[in-house]
């Protein structure tokens, strides 16, 4: 039988279009942006406090993260030869436009800083570049939350308050984690602390996200994205705790905990990405909240009239 008209959807088809963004390009870019942005902060701290090993690892991480992220971003374009069109305009309404204007200078600056650090040439310019990258780093790590949130994808849009914190925390976790892996333990203290603090922020923000979103948050808890998110949480918690408690004493613990946190950050981004996709595919996540909103408005109007 021709499926009867359903009050919920048109033949069960999604109402909004799921993003055409590719995996792993986009979730990887989210991860790399966070890693690079937070690493820039870490590098600058290391420079200020005189931790050359940590600075080098972080500078390289920031530069490589931005570079690979740019590659991932261009690769995701369906017309990559036109990537420069990203700089035609600067649109505050478009996080991707804003992000392009962050990513482009950040990539250049972080690369210059890393190059200077590795070669020892032009140290002052390198340092200046590093400071520039650091200024942009936190924005690079967090704007991607707005990138996702500024869509009609229910699980992303509705999470627009928490996602930046999740991303900031996840970026810090990753940057700290990566630094822990490649930095001698005696210089890695800030990295461990960043890792732990990031983990805390990320866990708290994620928790708040899933609890506040209610039904629209389902995809974060269920199915494949739910499993990804859960694994990320476990790894973050374990890695964070281990790094904080034993990372200072054991290079092995530090490395493993760092790796766990990097992996957790990757998983978080994939989890969030896929949760959004899932919420876009099922029309109920689009329809039900909207209908609820209409009901609430109607009720309010009725009570205003009655009042």
């Amino acid at each position, binding site marked *: 039988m021709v499926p*009867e008209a359903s009050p919920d959807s048109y033949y069960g088809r999604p*109402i*909004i279009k799921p993003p055409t963004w590719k995996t792993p390009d986009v979730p990887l870019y989210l991860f790399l942006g966070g890693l690079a942005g*937070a690493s820039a902060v870490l590098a600058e701290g290391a420079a200020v406090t005189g931790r050359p090993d940590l600075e080098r690892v972080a500078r390289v991480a920031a530069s490589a993260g931005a570079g690979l992220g740019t590659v991932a971003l261009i690769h*995701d374009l369906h017309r990559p030869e036109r990537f420069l069109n990203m700089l035609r305009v600067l649109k505050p309404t478009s996080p991707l436009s804003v992000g392009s204007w962050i990513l482009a200078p950040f990539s250049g600056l972080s690369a210059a800083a890393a190059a200077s650090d590795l070669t020892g040439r032009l140290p002052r310019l390198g340092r200046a570049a590093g400071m520039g990258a650091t200024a942009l780093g*936190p924005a690079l790590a967090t704007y991607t*939350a707005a990138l996702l949130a500024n869509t*009609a994808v229910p699980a992303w849009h509705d999470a627009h308050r*928490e996602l930046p914190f999740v991303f900031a925390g996840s970026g810090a976790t990753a940057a700290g984690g990566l630094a822990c892996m490649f930095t001698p333990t005696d210089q890695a203290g800030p990295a461990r602390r960043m890792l732990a603090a990031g983990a805390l922020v990320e866990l708290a923000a994620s928790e708040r996200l899933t609890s506040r979103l209610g039904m629209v948050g389902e995809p974060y808890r269920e199915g494949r994205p739910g499993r990804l998110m859960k694994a990320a949480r476990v790894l973050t918690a374990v890695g964070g705790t281990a790094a904080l408690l034993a990372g200072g004493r054991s290079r092995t613990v530090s490395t493993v905990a760092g790796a766990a946190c990097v992996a957790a950050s990757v998983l978080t981004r994939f989890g969030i990405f896929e949760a959004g996709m899932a919420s876009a595919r099922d029309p109920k996540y689009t329809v039900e909240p909207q209908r609820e909103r209409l009901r609430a408005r109607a009720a309010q109007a009725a009570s205003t009239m009655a009042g």
Partner: protein
Amino acid sequence: MSSSLSGPLHDVAGDAGHEDHPPRMGFFTDTSVCIGCKACEVACKEWNLVPEDGLSLSGMSYDNTQALGASTWRHVAFVEQPTGRASRTDLGMPGIGPPGGAEPPAGPGQETDSGEGGVRWLMSSDVCKHCTHAACLDVCPTGSLFRTEFGTVVVQEDICNGCGYCVPACPYGVIDIRPGDGRAFKCTLCYDRIGEGMTPACAQACPTESIQYGELDELRERAGRRLGELQEQGVDGARLYGADPDDGVGGDGAFFLLLDEPEVYGLPPDPVVTTRDLGSMWRHVGAAALGLVGVGVASFIGRRR
């Protein structure tokens, strides 16, 4: 700036920097007179040279187009609805069909309260809404999507780099990337045609004037009158969709008269432009960025190890 992002905005073209622009143009699609002929779909494709979009039978009544997309800029939905349904065991009633009322039922379809239920076949030609606050346009990083002097929203195919941001931004699921081409496509409200005073291809072809093209203000008035007529005739469920400048997208440049809930036609019941929350988003991003700075600073405070 707030009215540039959400809420009523009378001069959309002016807001986009067009001086001395023509009035805002749009579509009013009156589904109560749609006969589902799909002339709009074909006329659109012929004019805009949109490629064929798949040759498979969907089983969704007479709708094998299935949805708007990069290669479908007009989509006629077909909804089959039982009316006055009775249980199958009631099939033994003599005959079928509408009741022997004194007056024919007002409105389309047939209703019955005797025996087997009747059926209502809803048809509606969907199209890009050319929102007052268009998320696709807002999020486009290249400026490929832009607001024309007619207040419509158009993709500039020479600019689009296929980033795909517009796709999930649209609260109606209209715009999409065309596989094999890589750019985003959607209805242009025949920007080239209306620039020379011609009618968009779909509206010109539409045999029953279900698709009406014109100045948006005038269309809204016309739609209001038509709704009044239908309500007077007692047509159940008639309503306007997208005509309210106070709605979540500031009203649609292409709006509809529907005969049932929007969801039934695959339309969101209360769409909101995502950039309405742009301020909040950026504020939270800012706070989180600052937080990250704080985390960074804090990480270097304390023991020197």
